[in-house]
C-alpha cells in the first residue's frame, strides 16, 4: 500500500492525496474499533490474563 501520509513533510499534498489519507485513516480507525468488539479479541485477552496470572504466581512462589 502506498500512502501519501508518509511522503516527505516538505512536499505539499494534492487534494487527491489528502482525500486518500483521510480515507485510509478513517478505515484504520474503524477497523481498530471493530477489532476490539470481536469475540476472539476478548477471548485472547482472557487467555493472556490467565497465563500472566500463572506466571506471576509462579514468580511469587520462587
Amino acid at each position, binding site marked *: *500500500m*502506498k*500512502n*501519501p*501520509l*508518509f*511522503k*516527505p*513533510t516538505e*512536499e505539499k499534498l494534492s487534494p487527491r492525496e*489528502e482525500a486518500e*489519507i*483521510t480515507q*485510509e*485513516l*478513517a*478505515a*484504520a*480507525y474503524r*477497523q*481498530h474499533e471493530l*477489532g*476490539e468488539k470481536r469475540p*476472539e*479479541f476478548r*477471548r*485472547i*485477552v482472557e*487467555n*493472556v490474563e490467565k*497465563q*500472566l496470572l500463572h*506466571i506471576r504466581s509462579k514468580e511469587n512462589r520462587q
Partner: protein
Amino acid sequence: MPLPDTSLSLLSRLRDDGDHTGWQVSWKRFHGLYHGPLMAMAAGIYRHHTGNAVPPQEAIEDVVATVILDFLKRDRFDPKRGRLRTYLRVLTNARIVDMLRKEKPLDHDSIDAGEEMAEPLPAESPEEERSFQQALLATLIEDLREQIPLRQFEIFEMVKLKGISPDAAAAELGVNRGVIDNTIYKVMVRLREIAATPEYEEEYEKPSF
C-alpha cells in the same frame, strides 16, 4: 498519569517494571493495535505449513495469546535492529511450528517435522500486509492523540476519522468554521511529522513518488 511514550517506542520496552497496572495497560494497548495483523499472520503461516489447511480458530487464538506473552517476556524487540512486523512474524512462525509439531495431526501429511518446518518465513499474505498497515495507522492515530491537545484531537476525530462535515462539527462544538479548518490543518501537519519519525519510516515502506 504522565503521557506515555509513542506507541512504537513503547512497544520496544513493554515489560514489567514493578508497575503492574502500567504493564497491563501497555499489553492491552499492544493487543488492541496488533490483534488483526497477528490473527492474519498466524492464519497465513498455519496455511503455509499445512498445505493450505483451514486454520482452527481456537488454536490460532492460543497462538496469538502465546505470541503476545513471548513478546512481553523476551523483551528483545529493538526498533534499531529491524521491523516490528518481522519480529512478530518470527515469533508467530515459531509458535505455529511448535503447535503443529505437538499435534502431529493425521490430516496434515504435508508437514514434515524435519525439512518443511525448517523453511524460512513464508511470504507475507496481502491480507496480512493490509492488516499490518492498518494497525500502523491506528498506532499513528494513538500517538497523535497523546501529543496534541484533547480539543484538537476531538475536532480531528470528528472530521477526519468519523466523516462529520466541518460545518456540522463547527455547529456541534459551537465554534466558527475557520477554527475547524485551522485545527485540521495544524493536526495534519503534526500527523505527518510523527509519520516522518524514523520508527514509522522503518516500519512503513516508504512510498515511491
